[in-house]
């Protein structure tokens, strides 16, 4: 085979690979442009209880900090976003709203009667049965200044299939409702670091 023939053959492969790449990129971008709920996987179907892990992002080894349980419920759609409400079944009085667009999920919430705040951003929900996602988690408290930073953390959230939420939202927020494994956190406790 001559060098010219080999060159033409290689060029054809290169061209074919490029055409396929452009096709895939176009497909992905058109899917993003036309993103509309419902999305699958989502935070409820397949199990609405999730375990959220925190890892200290300031630490060079991203040391593990804590795991908390979160329960999600559908809360309608808003444009291209699927909305949820959520509450914790491991940290009493911690609740909020979440929004999903494709594989991006954003959570906000409060605890300690609104004195503590959380924001969590996650990407790439892996479909069941693994159902995992990773991202970042910020937690802080109001201190009449710039805010008291509790943590800037890396986050991993995995679905806890087969494990229904330990309580309903009403029970989770009921001041008189206590389990042995759902103690009342002190007013100075924070979800990112609290270990019952």
């Amino acid at each position, binding site marked *: 085979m001559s060098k010219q023939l*080999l060159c033409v053959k290689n060029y054809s492969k290169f061209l074919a690979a490029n055409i396929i790449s452009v096709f895939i990129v176009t497909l992905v971008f058109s899917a993003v442009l036309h993103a509309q709920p419902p999305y699958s996987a989502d935070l409820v179907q397949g199990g609405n209880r999730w375990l959220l892990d925190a890892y200290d992002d300031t630490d060079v080894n991203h040391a593990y900090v804590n795991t908390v349980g979160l329960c999600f419920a559908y809360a309608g759609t808003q444009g291209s976003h699927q909305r949820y409400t959520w509450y914790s079944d491991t940290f009493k009085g911690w609740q909020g709203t979440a929004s999903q667009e494709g594989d991006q999920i*954003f959570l906000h919430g409060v605890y300690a009667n609104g004195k503590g705040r959380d924001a969590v951003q996650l990407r790439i929900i892996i479909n069941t049965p693994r159902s995992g996602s990773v991202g970042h988690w910020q937690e802080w408290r*109001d201190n009449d200044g*710039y805010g008291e930073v509790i943590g800037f953390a890396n986050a991993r959230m995995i679905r806890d299939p087969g494990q229904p939420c330990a309580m309903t939202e009403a029970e989770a927020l009921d001041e008189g409702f206590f389990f042995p494994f759902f103690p009342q956190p002190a007013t100075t406790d924070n979800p990112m670091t609290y270990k019952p």
Partner: protein
Amino acid sequence: MRKTKQYVQTKCRTLLKVSLAASVLGLSTLSYAAAPYLPDFVKDGNRWSFKAYDDASPDHTTLVAAQVICFEYAGISGNHQLYTWYSETFPGWSGNAVQEGDQIFIHGDYANGAGHSSIQLDTLVAPTINGSAGTWQEWRHDGANGQTVNFAKTRALREGDCTLTAREAANLTPLLDGDPVITNVVP
């Protein structure tokens, strides 16, 4: 033809080795990320203009003309560069920020603590463009799941230095009505 094949194979192996070396180098750099990082939010100008776009809108509609945030260094924690920040355009809006490489996380409060903001930015582009993009969540405490103001996309651009100091900004009367992500208070 055999010679040509050998030549191509040799080139491929060299390319693979170079790619591997570059990957290892890149990973080791990530493993040892440590402040200070450049570019940052203060050097070359601490005044940044934030625009917001409604992420739920298929067109990502613009929400505010711009909010100005002023950053100040606040030390280092582990591999994070810390900042405090205040707004020149939305009185009473302030908070903390951290940077690790080209990732920036910002949180803050407004309306005397009734409103909360969290912003995440990626890719702090170096001068002269000085831009970055990311997402912005804002909500108000309502005694329940919180009243979402917006889940937004954002773009931040450096605009020189702030004219208000942190102390001057702290003396402004906090704005109780309106929310930074959707309210433009600058005429």
